[in-house]
């Protein structure tokens, strides 16, 4: 029995909640709405009633369950260590089992699942982006939607890459004397939008004499589906990725997206629970998956010689699923501090959620924006030139916020700065 297959699985967590309300102090949703359903305690009481048969699984209830960025701030602040992320995922899965998936999301997840359709859509999208979206004048800022299709017209989306990341690389990027062979799980955002980030990962790995395999059969990590309760799609995606990497013959899997990392480290094992074929594969790769920051600091360790100087003031935003989800917060800072010339200036509450949370920002654009505004104000307070983070989704949200606030910061993944420094060193 896993959280994805039965709501009963979270009973043992529910009973640990003593309704102390401590989660109110940190919940980004609660801070904006000031409604008890926003906070973990409120949603826990709803799940309890649902299990007791005292309320029905209505549309309204499913809506309430959508009010969570799964930032895990409540987990961390809970005196009783209630794993609220598990509770909310189980509740959403239950909602889908009983009520079906929201029609818009159904289309999105189906597209994510059917890789080729998605590739096609994105390619044509790239050509036609100008029709639907208005490019922002100036730097390579991205584009805003011309029409409000429910995503909010203010959101700045990155420009679609003319060529997907995976199609622009050979399956294996070789190095003269490899000390390791790793598989790179790119995730969708790098593949379709942030190819620069993917390139930085490959550049840094090869600079450290590591061969990189980029299996072309990999697809979406499935997190957008599983956090919304679409377990059937999530399972399909998990299997496809597990198979792709099983075939690739790598020593480890590298990810540079916090959701993809959580998928390989946590979700796949739970999704495949009881599967005669895939459970063992999922359990095997779980132990061999590393976030790029973690890998460079703890496994490699990365070369410090040959790092060129970049004179820049940088602040770092902790992605929720990297920081609280995987316990990785020192490593990216260590990398930043090792780059000559970089001055790391911490913002207020670097670990507070940016409000992106994948499709949360699609379903609740206004709320997402309000949460982001607080973050952007903290960033502005640092007076830095660059915002570094560890996840492409955060990068999108922060970039949009920074542009809309009229700020001049550049938003990048930590690894891009490291790649830049190596490049500088080679000059």
């Amino acid at each position: 029995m896993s959280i994805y297959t039965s709501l009963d699985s979270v009973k043992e967590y529910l009973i640990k909640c003593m309704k102390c309300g401590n989660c109110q102090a940190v919940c980004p949703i609660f801070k904006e709405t000031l409604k008890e359903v926003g906070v973990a305690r409120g949603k826990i009481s709803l799940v309890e009633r649902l299990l007791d048969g005292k309320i029905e699984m209505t549309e309204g209830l499913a809506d309430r369950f959508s009010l969570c960025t799964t930032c895990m701030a409540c987990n961390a602040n809970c005196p009783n260590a209630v794993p609220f992320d598990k509770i909310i995922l189980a509740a959403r899965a239950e909602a889908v089992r009983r009520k079906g998936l929201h029609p818009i999301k159904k289309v999105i997840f189906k597209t994510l699942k059917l890789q080729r359709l998605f590739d096609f859509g994105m390619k044509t999208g790239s050509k036609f982006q100008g029709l639907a979206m208005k490019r922002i004048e100036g730097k390579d800022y991205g584009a805003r939607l011309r029409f409000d299709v429910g995503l909010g017209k203010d959101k700045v989306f990155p420009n679609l890459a003319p060529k997907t990341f995976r199609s622009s690389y050979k399956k294996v990027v070789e190095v003269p004397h490899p000390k390791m062979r790793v598989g790179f799980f790119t995730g969708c955002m790098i593949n379709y939008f942030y190819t620069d980030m993917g390139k930085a990962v490959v550049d840094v790995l090869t600079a450290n004499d590591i061969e990189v395999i980029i299996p072309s059969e990999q697809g979406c990590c499935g997190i957008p589906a599983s956090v919304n309760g679409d377990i059937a799609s999530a399972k399909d995606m998990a299997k496809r990725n597990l198979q792709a990497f099983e075939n690739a013959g790598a020593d480890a899997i590298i990810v540079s997206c916090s959701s993809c990392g959580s998928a390989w480290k946590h979700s796949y094992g739970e999704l495949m629970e009881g599967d005669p074929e895939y459970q063992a594969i999922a359990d095997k790769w779980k132990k061999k998956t590393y976030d790029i920051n973690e890998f460079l600091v703890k496994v490699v360790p990365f070369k410090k010689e040959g790092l060129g100087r970049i004179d820049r003031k940088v602040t770092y935003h902790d992605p929720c699923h990297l920081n609280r989800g995987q316990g990785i917060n020192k490593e990216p800072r260590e990398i930043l501090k090792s780059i000559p010339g970089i001055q790391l200036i911490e913002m207020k509450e670097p670990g507070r959620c940016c409000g992106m949370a994948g499709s949360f920002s699609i379903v609740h654009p206004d709320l997402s924006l309000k949460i982001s505004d607080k973050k952007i104000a903290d960033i502005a307070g640092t007076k830095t030139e660059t915002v570094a983070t560890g996840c492409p989704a955060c990068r999108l949200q922060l970039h949009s916020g920074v542009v809309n606030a009229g700020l001049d910061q550049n938003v990048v993944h930590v690894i891009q700065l490291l790649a830049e420094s190596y490049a500088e060193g080679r000059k």
Partner: protein
Amino acid sequence: MFTTEVLHELIKVLGKENVLSEKEDLVTYSYDATAAVPSVEPDVVVTPTSTEHVVEIVKIANRYKIPIYPRGSGTNLSGGAIPIKKGIVLTTQKMNKILELDADNLTAMVQPGVIIQDLNNEAVKHGLIYPPDPGTVSTATMGGSVSECSGGLRGLKYGVTKHYIMGMELVLANGDVIKWGGKTVKNVSGYDLTALFTGAEGTLGIITKLLVKLIPAPEARKSLLAVFDDLDKAGNAISDIIRNKVIPATLEIMDKVTIGTVENFTHAGLPTDAEAVLLIEVDGYKEVVEREAPVVERVCRENGAVDIKVAKTDQERDLIWFARRNALPSLAQVKPALVLEDATVPRSKIPNVIKEIRRIAEKYNLMIGTYGHAGDGNLHPTIVIDPRDQDEVHRMEQAVDEIFKAAISLEGTLSGEHGIGIGKVKYLPLEFGEAGVNTIRRIKEALDPNYLLNPGKMVTKEE
């Protein structure tokens, strides 16, 4: 009675965004932080944003004879915010503005929904603090903590909430708005309404503004941890520190059960064979701290402390308080639910009451961890239970009964800081006698004859 007509009237005066009536929202206002009390869904939840809003709500409630339950963040531990007779939950969370901070007169004017920590964050910019610091400083509202007269870790030296209230604006059950108090240190006009309404648990009126006192932030502090192999020795040390004219800001105790549990879960390095540890902090001017800390150390030693640790760095200080902060969370790991009491006795009776609690725990075969604010006699005997175990729940109820009786017989009180709420109503005669309870009832009925405000709490209608 509640009807859709009432709902429409409420929406008319408050706007749709301030009225919640869907089942999925009502469920989330059916509880507060109290264990083992009934949970009841209200008919409607309203979030007023101004005094005028509150007045309108009270008028509607009067017209239709519907009870109102004021609510802050719902973190109290006596069932005070639960709408047990259904009706309107009025939450003040949207009335969350700090209206003024007057550094010359050392006061702040706040709306009731301001979170205590937010006021402190503002005050600290002026080198000031608002001292009452319940464990819920970063969640509880000013209105809620004033209505419970919350205490906290610094009660011994700095007092409790009631010592910091200088005036209020309040909406009465008939819709009248009254105001009193001001920025003057001295004020003896009229009856002392502040004393009446602080700790009234929302049963006499709805607070809409608060004028509170701030004090200069202490310059320095020093923390110590003293280990005792005998409860009486720890008790003597507590009294002796005070006798030596040192009033620590914080003087906490943890008993053997608590120490063992905390150590088990945090590995903070506590001595699990100890009978009690005292955690002490002195604060004030640097010179004062340097004089007082050694006195505390000496007194503990003279009273037979087997080990004393004085925090030399911030990290060492944090470790000491980390252990104390983890008392409740660690006990919570043992079993799913906690019943947290706050029976309070004169400080000289601390060893007696801890022994009584131990006897009661043994008698009812329960695990009770006792810790708390030893300096002010306010202990938190914490009973860990599994609510699914009916027999254990029953034994817990009997144990609670005996703990209250023990506290009263040791010249103490039912509640030091958590309030009477629902659960302790039936024990009130123990402390006040029939005539006393009747007096409380007459005050209630003079101000709220129809029991519209938070009915079922503190005092109930005579049967």
